[in-house]
């Protein structure tokens, strides 16, 4: 077996080094915290508000709709494909932790929902929703949710 490094191999090594360097530069830009509460503040609260209340007719509330959506497979898929999640700078693990932290902090009983996993987030967020409002309306209509949720139908 030859110990010589061939040209393609050396290019591969150089490429790997460059990739590692760029990953480091990106991670140093804005480190993701290990605390989901802090990640919520830094990555979500700017639009959804400090408590997740949203802005009427502008930014969807999380407090009412999120606990309702996560109880069905379709709802969970929707949550993980909305622009705020699909485009988030948070990692898959970071997204899962923030969502689980938010749900655990809300009044939702733990028995009523399954925590998100990084794998579930990774699978779903790869396919961002194109018609978010339409998907949201369809979901709420299909789920026959209470009138409390139905008033959050248009965003």
């Amino acid at each position, binding site marked *: 077996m030859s110990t010589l490094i061939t040209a393609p191999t050396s290019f591969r090594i150089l490429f790997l080094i460059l990739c590692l360097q760029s990953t480091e530069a990106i991670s140093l*830009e*804005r480190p993701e*915290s*290990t*605390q989901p509460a*802090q990640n919520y*503040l*830094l*990555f979500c*609260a*700017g*639009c959804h*508000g*400090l408590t997740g209340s949203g*802005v009427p007719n*502008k*930014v969807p509330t999380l407090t009412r709709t999120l606990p309702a959506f996560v109880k069905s497979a379709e709802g969970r898929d929707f949550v993980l494909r909305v622009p705020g999640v699909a485009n988030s*700078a948070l990692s898959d693990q970071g997204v899962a932790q923030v969502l689980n932290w938010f749900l655990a902090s809300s009044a939702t009983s733990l028995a009523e929902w399954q925590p998100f996993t990084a794998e579930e987030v990774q699978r779903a967020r790869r396919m961002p929703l194109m018609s978010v409002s339409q998907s949201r309306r369809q979901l709420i209509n299909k789920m026959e949710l209470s009138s409390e949720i139905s008033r959050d139908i248009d965003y």
Partner: protein
Amino acid sequence: MQQRIDRLLERASRRVAQRTSRRGFLGLFGAALTGATLLPLLPVSRGGQALAEPTSPKVPASPTASDDPVSCDYWKYCAIDGFLCACCGGSSSSCPPGTTPSPITWIGTCHNPGDGRDYIVSYNDCCGKTSCGACSCNRNEGEKPMYRLSLNNDANWCMANDNPNYHCSVSVLLGVAGQ
């Protein structure tokens, strides 16, 4: 005597000519030139050189950071872009009378050189009146272009207000940033 010297020099010249070649000489000369050029690039320690240079005073990370709310150098304004509400009838963290804070905003961190800690800061625009025009301040630490809208300070964050006129900006501390 002269003939003897001539013979001696001739013999010496012929010996050199027989043992060496012009190409060999050129090659050796070229290698010497190249070596002399590359020598300063070798990774040798230049510690001595650095020590020989005059030492300049250490510049602090944020030389002009202050705690003055009407100064653009106030540490918690590290990524603000707009008119400081503290100069417009409000404070560094509250909107002037007659304006309402934007419900959507962008949130980042600022380093406080006073205690060496990073703080989570919410930059809210105050909306509902025309531009204040006083104490314009534009600092962009950690600010990102429009494709990262949630980290952009050029956006009019009054866009979600009933009256989207921009008046001034505040910087609200939300807590200490941990790991």
